[in-house]
């Protein structure tokens, strides 16, 4: 296939990211032209169309082979500070799909609220940052894009400013975020001190010969790992997640727990695979894959057990999101110098894509329930299927898919992940994952049981059907289902993108 970059100028490779940023600016422009009239349909439409356009372009680039092996390799911009390759495009697809569903759903969720244009604009700005995170080729752009993604997120979590929970969640998220940003920056400065460069490729070649500074480099790497743990809601920086996801408007919980987490993994994958190759750092005694293996085990176990004890469905999903960060961490943990590392990392990427659909769908279902003012606990969901069978069917799909049951996408992506971990020799990691996955069925099936099998405790007064929310939830459900038969190309794309990182 003819590489696209031979036909188009090089800068067009970042077109998906630019489209996201452009949509954010268009939204602000529309709002400043006509600030008084609230036209929620137009705003939600622009945001959804912008993200769909991003999705289309990123998907087209992926299919056309832009920046991938076989058509010229990664495209570097600004001296390597930005890199467009399979990994960055793949995660842009994840982020754009989530943003499309979230904007569609927000149309109903935000009805009769003020500052709608700002809401959509902040979502798209954060998405721009998340897309850039996947493209960051230097520690400086890593930090900038991470902040670009984080700052709008803080505001979005606290968007319901008359709601104590929302404001408290925003504050907690901001404080933990600020601390972890500081840790990350300090880590970057230590790595810079030891290697003399911020460019990942140069860091990689210098880190092996750090000599006496190996200790400084090691501490720096651990601190950078801590910064990413915050973004992906992994142990030990996970404790903001339940608060933020529970207090935030539900579409934002969906956005943060799916897209933001995926972006965190995107940048972590690139920084650790490219910047600190295991071949170079393990001989010096810095085995970060072991660190991630421990974090993965602790994160998935802690997330699962905490989720099992919740009475509030949204909070249960928040802890389940922590648990899923643990599964995705396997992509960084089951690596070894010279092993088939791209396969397990690719499987982790594919899991994050599937997770983007099923988890977004689940949180959007919560948004729908909040819209109906049904209540928050498992008991409040009792008998909901008698009134809203279609939506409850979709939620059932999400729950069983998150638990990893066939015939849904989550089954195959978890299977692929554990399977590749075993292939890499980390059978114990896969075993812990499989056991956790089996235990998770307990709390996911509680939701299903409440909706379908328990008798309603009272009358539901659901009111009019929220069209946008319904559509978004259905899109997510269909995506979750279709990702089972269509998993082949997804995982192949992801694995070849990840393999290119290790080349």
């Amino acid at each position, binding site marked *: 296939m003819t590489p696209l970059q031979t036909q188009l100028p090089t800068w067009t490779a970042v077109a998906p990211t630019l489209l996201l940023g452009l949509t954010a600016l268009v939204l602000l422009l529309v709002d400043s032209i006509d600030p008084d009239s609230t036209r929620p349909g137009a705003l939600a439409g622009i945001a959804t169309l912008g993200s769909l356009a991003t999705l289309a372009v990123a998907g087209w680039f992926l299919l056309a082979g832009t920046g991938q092996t076989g058509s010229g390799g990664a495209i570097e911009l600004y001296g390597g500070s930005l890199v467009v390759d399979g990994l960055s495009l793949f995660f842009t697809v994840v982020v754009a799909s989530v943003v499309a569903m979230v904007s569609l759903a927000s149309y109903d969720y935000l009805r009769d609220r003020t500052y709608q244009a700002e809401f959509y604009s902040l979502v798209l700005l954060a998405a721009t940052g998340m897309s850039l995170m996947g493209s960051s080729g230097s520690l400086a752009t890593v930090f900038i894009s991470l902040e670009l993604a984080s700052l709008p997120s803080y505001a979005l979590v606290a968007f319901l400013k008359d709601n104590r929970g929302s404001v408290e969640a925003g504050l907690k998220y901001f404080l933990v975020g600020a601390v972890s940003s500081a840790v990350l920056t300090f880590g970057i400065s230590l790595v810079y001190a030891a290697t003399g460069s911020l460019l990942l490729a140069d860091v990689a070649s210098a880190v092996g010969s750090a000599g006496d500074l190996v200790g400084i480099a090691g501490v720096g790497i651990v601190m950078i790992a801590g910064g990413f743990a915050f973004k992906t809601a992994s142990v030990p920086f996970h404790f903001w997640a339940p608060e933020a996801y529970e207090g935030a408007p539900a579409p934002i919980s969906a956005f943060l727990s799916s897209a933001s987490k995926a972006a965190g993994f995107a940048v972590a994958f690139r920084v650790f695979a490219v910047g600190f190759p295991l071949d170079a750092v393990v001989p010096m005694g810095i085995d970060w894959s072991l660190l991630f293996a421990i974090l993965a085990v602790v994160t998935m176990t802690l997330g699962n057990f905490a989720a099992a004890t919740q009475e509030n469905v949204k909070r249960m999903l928040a802890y389940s999101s922590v648990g899923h960060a643990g599964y995705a961490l396997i992509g960084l943990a089951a690596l070894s110098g010279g092993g*088939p590392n791209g*396969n397990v990392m690719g*499987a982790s990427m594919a899991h994050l894509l599937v997770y983007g659909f099923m988890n977004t769908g689940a949180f959007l279902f919560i948004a729908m329930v909040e819209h109906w003012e049904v209540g928050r606990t498992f008991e409040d969901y009792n008998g909901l299927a*008698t009134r809203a*069978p279609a939506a409850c069917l979709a939620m059932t799909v999400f729950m*069983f898919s998150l638990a990893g*049951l*066939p*015939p849904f996408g989550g*089954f195959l992506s978890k299977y*692929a992940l554990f*399977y*590749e971990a*075993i*292939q890499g020799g980390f*059978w114990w990691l896969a075993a812990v994952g*499989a056991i956790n996955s*089996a235990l998770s*069925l307990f709390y996911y*099936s509680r939701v299903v*049981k409440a909706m*379908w*099998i*328990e008798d309603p405790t009272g009358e539901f007064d659901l009111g009019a059907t929220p069209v946008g929310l319904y559509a978004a939830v259905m899109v997510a459900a269909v995506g979750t289902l279709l990702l*089972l*038969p269509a*998993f*082949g*190309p997804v*995982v*192949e794309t992801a694995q070849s993108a990840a393999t290119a990182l290790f080349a």
Partner: protein
Amino acid sequence: MIIEALIAITFVASMAVLLAPNAWAGRLAATLSLLPVVGSLYMWSRFDATGNALTGGTPAFETTVQWLELGGYTLNWHVGVDGIGLPLVVLTTVLTTLAVVSAWASIDDRQSQFYGLMLFMEANLLGVFTALDFFVWFVFWEAVLLPMYFLIGVWGGPRRKYAAIKFFVYTNIASLAMFIGFIALVFGLGDSVSSLDMPAIAGALRAGELGSLYGIPAATLRTVAFVAMFLGFAVKVPIVPFHTWLPDAHVEAPSPVSVMLAGVLLKMGTYALLRFNFTMLPETATQFAAPIALIAVISVIYGAMLALAQQDLKRIVAYSSVSSMGYVILGLIAYTTYGVGGATFQMIAHGLISGLMFMAVGVIYNTTHTRMVGDMSGMADRMPVTTGILVAGAFGYMGLPLMAGFAGEFFIFKGAFESTVHAAMPLFTAVAMFGIVVVAGYLLFAMQRTLFGAFRLETDYEVGPAPISETAPLAVLLVAIIVLGVAPDLFFGMIQNAVDPLLEFGGELS
């Protein structure tokens, strides 16, 4: 392509029914479920498979399409039927239609969801009996559980929540054990297989290409995997002592769901045992012949004894299913053409007979609102047709000649008696035969008390003949049972053709 069409049509039908209004969902489901019946009968008429699909035979209607590639293993969409799969496919389609029709009179709540789930379950069952790739098979296998969970949990009796959860948890843990056992085998095969294709894996395992895995020697790995898979399937069958979910599930499930559970879902367990344990690891199976035959006999006798102690008609039939499944296991372990072939035939026969029994008990319950033996007597006066069919079905259960049950059990006893897998097989067979006496005892006793004598009912319901939508499926089942009893060769020929390649261990080919 016909298998794909069959499964796809059933899926689409289930979606259509799910969206239909409650008022005519039952009619629509019954009409649409005729399509797979016609399809499976067409497959039967054009059936041209030879040998066993897993051991080098040629399955009929085979297709292989690559699905995805993962870590050096190819996952294919690979389906086809041989002489073992086709009878089960026909059983599934026919029994689903009959169960759907018999549900018209009793399901009066959320009908579109009920019938949609029934058809969704049928589609997945068809997948289980036709898949020839482990992964495809496993997806269908697990997907059968979901509709069953809802069917018991939403439309079941007073303790439905407990029964549904128990069913779900038991069978899911069993699936996990089986899955891990099988995947360990695949890893142990190393480079000699490059896909999860069941024929390829069966071939490699039978050729003795299993190597060590993570320092576990091949012999240990083989034994551990066999046990893990056996336990996984034993829950599904169920074999004593893993049977405790079954009576709960049956008693709480609505009758049409019990029909599917006893008629088809239990056969998934024996089918999988035959396909995996007994086809892929025959040496280990024969090595364990004595313990397996022993638990088969225990299932037969203990299940029958438990049935003897019950007052609830549905529990009686449920426990006697445990007993009948024991015969199937006994036939499978015999490794003779009549043993394995008879076991496969018994799967079909028991599917029809237990379907009939559960359906008939359901008809009586719908009229009397009780299933307790002591609560009623003389039902024959008020419901002559139902009673007549129930009596005939019970005689089928007891093994009356010229009915399907007789053929199945006779084949199994003949095969097990001749078996040479273990010196004590004739002894086991002789003990198992006593099960028949117990079955005859409790069925005759229960029928005598409920059906005959003067009419008496300890509730206030008006009792009259059952509607035609309930008696017609019963009549169809009875006809099928008699036809298969008179002419077992309708299925037994193709079954024998498919099981003979498995018999290099144990008794001689005859």
